[in-house]
């Protein structure tokens, strides 16, 4: 008699619907987020990892109005979930001083299909760029400059 072995499912039964929406100084374990994003019904996980680009800078300093930024991120995650039928969303935005190559922002989404996962991830990053109160300052040898934000009348100073 042959016993059929069934491998254990790769989705997590213990965290369905639980998302990580955070603003923090610490880095994040991307592999752990990907693993946690796999839900029953997931067919695709999309990871967006925004990192500090080497634009001739030494470091980058990030600042947030956390009391407003965190609820905004939660609102964006909820809207993305509803509009793009996502099964899981994590958004982790870092603040503090970061070096070239460091992670700034992790967005991890899962959905039944790639179209929804890509669209949901794209929606989240664009909404963050539009309105979440977080700022970046590029620190160079000569001092630093604030990265100009976008607004309807053109870039700020």
């Amino acid at each position: 008699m042959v016993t059929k072995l069934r491998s254990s499912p790769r989705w997590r039964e213990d965290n369905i619907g639980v998302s990580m929406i955070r603003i923090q100084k610490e880095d994040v374990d991307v592999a752990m987020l990907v693993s946690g994003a796999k839900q029953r019904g997931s067919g695709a996980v999309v990871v967006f990892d925004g990192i500090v680009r080497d634009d001739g800078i030494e470091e980058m300093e990030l600042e947030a109005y956390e009391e407003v930024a965190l609820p905004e991120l939660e609102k964006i995650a909820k809207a993305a979930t509803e509009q793009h039928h996502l099964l899981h969303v994590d958004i982790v935005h870092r603040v503090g001083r970061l070096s070239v190559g460091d992670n700034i922002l992790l967005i991890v989404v899962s959905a039944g299909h790639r179209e929804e996962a890509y669209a949901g991830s794209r929606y989240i990053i664009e909404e963050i760029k539009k309105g979440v109160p977080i700022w970046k300052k590029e620190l160079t040898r000569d001092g630093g400059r604030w990265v100009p934000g976008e607004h309807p009348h053109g870039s700020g100073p």
Partner: protein
Amino acid sequence: MSVKVRFFARFRELLGTDLITEYRQGTVLLALVHDIAGKNPDGYNAMFDEKGNFRDFVIVMQNGRRIDTMNAGNIAISDGDEIAVFPPVAGG
């Protein structure tokens, strides 16, 4: 009566942040921020135009809700309010 005024990013560097400010009854939001920013000409010029209005890119929140800066001269403040003033956001 007092309010907390918070500046962020470049405005914070020029003016400080988490400023607990006493105000007189009837003071409107625009006048309150004028008074505080007036202590540093660079800070003042960064957020106000030559007519004393908020520059069009400046974002102002009262208790976490964005207000129309064109109307800041008519907005009353209340004891314990938190006013936040900041330049366009650049997260992500």
